[in-house]
């Protein structure tokens, strides 16, 4: 059997472009070029300030070296505080994220509850940790309490959002089947939902612990306790060699945290 002749059909085919209309296509290209030119023009590069900056940077780095670990007790105290903040925030964040996450899943929660939970998540995600930390410092004063609260808010917001999205993406089949057995809502949760999201929940929580270690160093800068506050103080006193010692230690801590988190998450799969 020979294949039927195909000669009368077109011999070339091109995929349709993203923008079908050629005029529109050129217009988009022209606009992009204009935008790039405008962006470069609006930079207002002031070369004398840049030159001064180089000077000051040289000065700063010169005074940073060699790093001074002389006040290691202060350093250690700051780190202990940061670590405690991160651990406490991760724990409370994990726990609080469960109810918020469940309420923020469209396929579980009644409409009003869903909207409230989503609202909380959106609002807390809108503001950067530093802004939340500033607010908490205003309310509770300087120190680690403001830092822990900041990190708890950020953790709940992050974990519950991911959790809710996971629950929404679950195939409805198993949920339907467990419902059809006549299970009450709590039993439905532990049989149809928990097993499916547990590995992901643990993974997210570990990831968040790692992120909290990093962020605990940042929120201190606005006075919310931990190593960040020590760092800020050292800059203010021009103890740049101590600042460098702190920065090096932060890098080491974050590195360890990242490694640890990757290791655990690898084992969860």
């Amino acid at each position, binding site marked *: 059997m020979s294949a039927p002749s195909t000669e009368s059909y077109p011999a070339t085919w091109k995929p349709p472009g993203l923008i079908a209309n050629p005029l529109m296509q050129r217009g988009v290209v022209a606009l992009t070029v204009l935008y790039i030119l405008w962006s470069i023009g609006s930079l207002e590069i002031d070369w004398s300030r840049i030159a001064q900056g180089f000077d000051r940077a040289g000065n700063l780095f010169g005074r940073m070296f060699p790093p001074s670990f002389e006040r290691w007790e202060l350093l250690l105290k700051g780190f202990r505080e940061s670590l405690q903040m991160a651990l406490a925030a991760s724990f409370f964040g994990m726990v609080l994220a469960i109810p918020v996450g469940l309420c923020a899943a469209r396929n579980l929660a009644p409409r009003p509850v869903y909207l409230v939970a989503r609202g909380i998540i959106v609002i807390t995600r809108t503001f950067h940790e530093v802004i939340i930390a500033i607010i908490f410092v205003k309310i509770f004063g300087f120190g680690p309490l403001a830092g822990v609260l900041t990190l708890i808010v950020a953790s709940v917001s992050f974990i519950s959002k991911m959790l809710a999205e996971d629950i929404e993406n679950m195939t409805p*089949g*198993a949920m*339907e*089947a*467990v*419902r*059809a*057995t*006549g*299970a*009450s809502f*709590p*039993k*439905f949760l*532990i*049989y*149809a939902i928990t*097993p*499916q999201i*547990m*590995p992901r929940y643990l993974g997210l929580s570990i990831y968040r612990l790692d992120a909290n270690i990093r962020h605990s160093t940042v929120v201190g800068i606005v006075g919310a306790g931990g190593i960040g506050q020590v760092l800020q103080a050292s800059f203010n006193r021009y103890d740049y060699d101590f600042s460098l010692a702190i920065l090096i230690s932060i890098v080491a801590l974050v590195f360890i945290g990242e490694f640890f988190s990757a290791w655990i998450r690898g084992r969860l799969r």
Partner: protein
Amino acid sequence: MLTITDLTKQYPTGLKALHGISLTVDEPQVVAIIGPSGAGKSTLIRCVNRLVEPTSGSVLLDGTDITKLGRGPLRRARRRMGMIFQEYNLVDRLTVMENLLSGRLGYVGFWRAFRRNYPAADVQAAYALLDRVGLHGYENTRADALSGGQRQRVGIGRALMQQPDLLLVDEPTASLDPKTSRQIMRIIVELAHERGTPALLNIHDVPLARSHADRIIGLTAGAIVFDGKPDDLNEAVLTEIYGEEDWSKTVGRDDDDDGGGNAAPGRSGRPGDLDSAAVAG
């Protein structure tokens, strides 16, 4: 046992999926519901346990009107209705045993369920069913490590763990090969007969329905157009249910398969199985 009266369902999209269905099942029989895609078979079955809310009409199960029940009573009614799904709908990350025991969720308390500490009778019933559906030794296997046929066996076990007064079965074999389909169908029908449990069973495979069901209901565009014995299902009736088509091959007596009660997964079937099942579109 089950009396459905004037059941209608209109989806929020405005589509009327059921136009006043009435039917009675008053003996423990397997009722196969056949009909073209979109006829409303799944809608009908789901209205019975209210996974889909009926728009009007009543569903009486042993005298209780399911459509009027509040949340608590509905849960208690649901545990008397075992459901088997086309896509098996097991909880993937749970073991076979946990999936089976989840059929008891309506009966045990929260902490027992949470700690997987089920009454001895439930555990024994689960082991017995595991054996009965041909999955002896699979209790600790995770559901996502099973083949389709094996999953459906677990799905059947879960439904029967409820010791239901009614089985609702939605296309149990549609995702399975012809031979496994037959085995699954036989397990369901045998168990229903053994336990005296009536079953409503949606199925596309007409020969399989003819050979295994006690009664056949033909559903077209949300209305019952045939209700009778499998032997009364002739070309004219099939044309009424599905529309004009050459039905001569489908109506020809379907060879039943090897009939034994044993349904071990590894058993080989006769080559004839493939031919007779392939006819159903």
